[in-house]
């Protein structure tokens, strides 16, 4: 029987426990680690507060045990020695006492200025959390090796330039000709409807895999077995998560029947918990063998292939064999395996991690990752600079205190250490808060991702990332804490005491000004970026998408090909249409294969367009959808020429197609398209342009085929209604679900589905906006701090000037001007940098030039207003200087 190894936290706890309780044997410690993990997981599942309480209890318990053991008179002789307290004990005690008292002093300072401390800690925590999150996601998608033994010997096989192009039969043939591969697996993931015994269907993530997958993975099965070559195709392997959740981890699960896509299957095994999908970093819920149909069909190219190098085999050998195998496929069936240049489609072999992205996408992904890291780093730098600024401010305030303590004979090292300890207290608090923020954010992220697709994303906070972030936290804060600490230690006793009457700005102010400038720059950059994206979103919402989603409810149904034959789908369509049309709220019904702008559009390539000669290497392609009669009328897509589909366009009738105007402009700019052919279908109509894949495609060729002549496996009913669309959609979905209880049916307002196009923009705008406003807040605090300090230094000077007849308004103006001098250079630099960044991501923008005058003006106004506000309080204080009071102070 195999079981998971205890977590890192549990092992650390067990290690500490053995130091505290030396009599504990190794087996006891393992047992303790298991108990610890069970309790931890249970608390995590219960609630955040239970989880926090768990850690608190465990900490108290460990410390309590340590105290009890230490004071126990009959303690085993070994424990003292093991504790490392021997000859140098007194010295250690002494040092420990110092550190403790420093820590206490640090905590006192922390509590003394709660607002300042809370702001530093929180901003730093958010900065750290963003870095850890970005790191975690990038790590999971790009960097982390697959969680399989010997992952460094794994390779990905691509057929041509793209990753998803394998048919099962091609995979079999190629792998059989490549002895350099010890084993290989082909997988393809997708959503399925799973019904547990006595339950309702739920959408889950399935991975169809070749029978060798589990042997290839080389991980022991949690229970039962993997697939065997002679398995009937009604078997299923379930995930450990599903096994625990649905079967309570009972042995009886093996051999039980579950229903997948309306078809009963027998559970033969529980997959190892560590196994993620080979396709992307998600954890499938079920694994299914590849059906007989898909095994034979060479045209069905939907598989990813990962192989393991045989001992001693090199990548070069593998590539040579792959070349020969590709040539073999071409010889056997040239039509199916011919590339666009007429030669055989090549088989490419990449190291596993390198091959995760198709070469074509790599540059844009790397740019995206760089941008995400840049943003995360910027937020962290701003947060750290904020802490630095606060610490420097505090150090200036405490200069007098430090001088007095030095004068009284305190050691300089001791003072430096104390100042440093204070920064470490902030860093530690920020680190703890960051762990919490990251946990919550990850929970939200996983929730959002699981809401859109089934299966759990395999995102775990990476220990490396956590250590990395902790190092940054301590490093940055210690660095920024060190400057004041060093200056504190260097302080000569007399000058700060003397300066009480002086007017000279101390050198430290230069550093603070630089930091404030940097903060203003960062704030301006983020604000401009946020405003540009906001503008873009405003434009995007105003765009005419070419169809009218208002007043339309959509009801989508997944039908599995294997379960429903074509005739059955037709029968189902008729029943469902009758039900929908009979409903009291329905004005019109039409069907389609997908919803435009919903994120799941399809396209056809390699089209043969009559009379159009493609240039070499050009791919003649268009977006496609399969629609029923009445679709165009229902969505109010205008028919510019010819006709739309009717019920007469059915199987057996001549194949027809409707194109959009962009298609006509592109391929038949000068001719009447009606009556011309695309492949073997005749164009019968030209409709208005629609944006189907993204808001940016204004000129994309698109074509519709009639549902009477080809059936999609996903059906979406569009229902025009005067009632509330979302409620109607939900009600109709339940009604259609009643036709076949094994189906998953979703009903929504069409507006909500097409809104998916705005989600990415909305998220980007929000991230920049929130970060930008946080940065403005920090910059304001910085400006305020520096000015307030300057004014306090110059109180005497102001007093004299007022006494000599200077107008308070002049002092006010001068201080405000000082504030502007502090802000303007940073703001200009930030606006420039923000514009440069908008330029870099201009492909995401809709209807806005990267240099957007409105955004720039608004950004400048916002920063200016914030700076003025921050300067106002110290400026008023300067203007109100009472000469008598200020002169008497000295």
């Amino acid at each position: 029987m195999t079981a998971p190894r205890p977590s890192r936290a549990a092992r650390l706890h067990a290690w500490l426990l053995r130091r505290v309780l030396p009599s504990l044997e190794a087996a006891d410690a393992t047992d303790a680690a298991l108990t610890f993990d069970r309790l931890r997981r249970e608390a995590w599942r219960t609630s955040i507060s239970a989880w926090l309480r768990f850690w608190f209890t465990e900490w108290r318990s460990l410390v309590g045990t340590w105290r009890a053991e230490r004071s126990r008179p009959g303690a085993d002789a070994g424990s003292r020695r093991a504790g490392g307290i021997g000859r140098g004990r007194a010295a250690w005690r002494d040092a420990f006492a110092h550190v403790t008292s420093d820590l206490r002093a640090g905590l006192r300072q922390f509590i003394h200025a709660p607002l300042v401390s809370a702001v530093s800690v929180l901003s730093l925590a958010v900065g750290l959390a963003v870095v850890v999150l970005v790191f975690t996601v990038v790590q999971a998608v790009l960097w982390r090796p697959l969680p399989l033994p010997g992952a460094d010997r794994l390779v990905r096989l691509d057929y041509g330039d793209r990753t998803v192009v394998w048919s099962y039969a091609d995979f079999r043939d190629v792998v059989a000709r490549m002895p350099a591969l010890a084993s290989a697996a082909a997988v393809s993931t997708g959503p399925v409807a799973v019904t547990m015994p006595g339950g309702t269907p739920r959408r889950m993530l399935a991975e169809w895999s070749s029978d060798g997958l589990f042997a290839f993975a080389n991980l022991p099965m949690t229970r039962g077995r993997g697939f065997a070559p002679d398995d009937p195709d009604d078997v299923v392997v379930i995930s450990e998560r599903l096994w625990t959740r649905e079967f309570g981890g009972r042995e009886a699960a093996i051999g039980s029947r579950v229903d997948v896509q309306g078809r009963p299957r027998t559970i033969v095994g529980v997959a190892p918990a560590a196994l993620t999908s080979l396709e992307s970093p998600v954890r499938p819920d079920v694994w299914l063998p590849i059906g007989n149909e898909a095994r034979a069909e060479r045209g069905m190219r939907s598989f990813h292939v990962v192989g393991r190098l045989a001992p001693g085999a090199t990548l070069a050998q593998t590539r040579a064999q792959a070349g020969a195998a590709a040539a073999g496929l071409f010889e056997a069936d040239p039509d199916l395996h011919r590339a666009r240049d007429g030669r055989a489609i090549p088989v490419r072999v990449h190291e596993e991690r390198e091959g995760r992205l198709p070469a074509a996408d790599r540059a844009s992904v790397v740019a995206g990752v760089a941008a995400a890291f840049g943003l995360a780093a910027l937020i962290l730098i701003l947060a750290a600079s904020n802490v630095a600024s606060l610490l420097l401010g505090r150090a200036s305030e405490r200069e007098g205190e430090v001088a007095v303590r030095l004068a009284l004979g305190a050691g300089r090292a001791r003072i430096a250490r104390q100042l440093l300890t204070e920064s470490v207290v902030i860093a530690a608090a920020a680190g703890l808060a960051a762990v919490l923020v990251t946990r919550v954010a990850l929970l939200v992220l996983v929730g959002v991702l699981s809401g859109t697709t089934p299966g759990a994303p395999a995102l775990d906070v990476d220990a490396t990332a956590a250590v990395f972030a902790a190092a940054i936290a301590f490093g940055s804060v210690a660095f920024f804490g060190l400057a004041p600490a060093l200056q504190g230690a260097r302080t000569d006793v007399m000058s700060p005491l003397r300066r009480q009457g002086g007017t000279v700005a101390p050198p430290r102010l230069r550093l603070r000004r630089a930091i404030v400038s940097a903060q203003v720059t960062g704030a301006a950059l983020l604000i401009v970026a946020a405003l540009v994206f906001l503008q873009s979103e405003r434009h995007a919402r105003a765009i005419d998408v070419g169809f009218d989603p208002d007043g339309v409810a959509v009801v989508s149904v997944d039908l599995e090909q294997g379960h429903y034959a074509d005739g059955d789908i037709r029968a189902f369509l008729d029943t469902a249409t009758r039900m929908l049309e009979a409903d009291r709220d329905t004005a019109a019904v039409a069907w389609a294969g997908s919803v435009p702008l919903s994120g799941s559009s399809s396209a056809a390539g390699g089209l043969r367009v009559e009379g159009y000669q493609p240039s070499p290497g050009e791919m003649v392609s268009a977006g496609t959808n399969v629609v029923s009669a009445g679709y165009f009328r229902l969505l109010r897509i205008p028919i510019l020429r010819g006709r739309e589909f009717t019920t007469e366009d059915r199987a057996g009738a001549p194949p027809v197609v409707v194109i959009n105007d962009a298609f006509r402009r592109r391929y038949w700019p000068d001719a009447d398209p009606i009556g011309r052919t695309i492949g073997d279908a005749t164009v019968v109509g030209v409709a208005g342009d629609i944006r189907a894949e993204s808001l940016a495609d204004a000129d994309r060729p698109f074509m519709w085929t009639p549902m009477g002549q080809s059936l999609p496996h996903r059906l979406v009913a569009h229902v025009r209604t005067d009632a509330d669309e979302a409620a109607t959609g939900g009600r109709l979905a339940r009604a259609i679900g009643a036709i076949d209880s094994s189906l998953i049916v979703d009903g929504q307002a069409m507006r909500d589905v097409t809104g998916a196009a705005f989600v990415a923009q909305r998220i980007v705008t929000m991230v920049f906006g929130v970060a930008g406003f946080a940065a403005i807040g920090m910059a304001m605090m910085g400006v305020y701090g520096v000015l307030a300090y300057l004014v306090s230094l110059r109180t005497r000077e102001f007093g004299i000037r007022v006494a000599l007849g200077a107008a308070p308004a002049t002092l006010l103006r001068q201080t405000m001007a000082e504030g502007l001098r502090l802000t303007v250079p940073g703001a200009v630099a930030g606006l420039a940098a923000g514009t440069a960044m908008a330029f870099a991501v201009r492909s995401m923008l809709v209807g806005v030039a990267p240099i957007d005058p409105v955004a720039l003006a608004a950004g400048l106004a916002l920063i200016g207003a914030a700076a003025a506000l921050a300067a106002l309080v110290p400026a008023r204080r300067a203007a109100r200087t009472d000469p008598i009071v200020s002169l008497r102070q000295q």
Partner: protein
Amino acid sequence: MSGTVQLPLPAWDFQILVAVLDEARHGYAIVQWIRDQTGTPDALGTSTLYAALKRLSRQGLIAEAPRPAGETSADERRRYYRATAEGRAVARAEARRIHQLHGLAEHARLLSGPARLAKGRS
């Protein structure tokens, strides 16, 4: 191995002893059982538990027990404990002592509700 056991037992030892009185349990099950019986969440930490288990074994009040026949799915690395005859005797003695204390508390009306206290004063 066992020496004299002093009553009262240290904190948690009594509860742990009672948890393994009639049934062999492993660490996690002990925590769960105590939590279910007393309704106090999370008060018993892992360190406290294993220190107590070690102490009770040393005193000969509990001993490691074979895995119960019914539990097939549990991890084989888990250790099960069960009270010894001496452990049962000590538990009984401790229970008697607590019972006497309880009688004393009743006598002093320590456990009466605030209403009765107020009445007593008036």
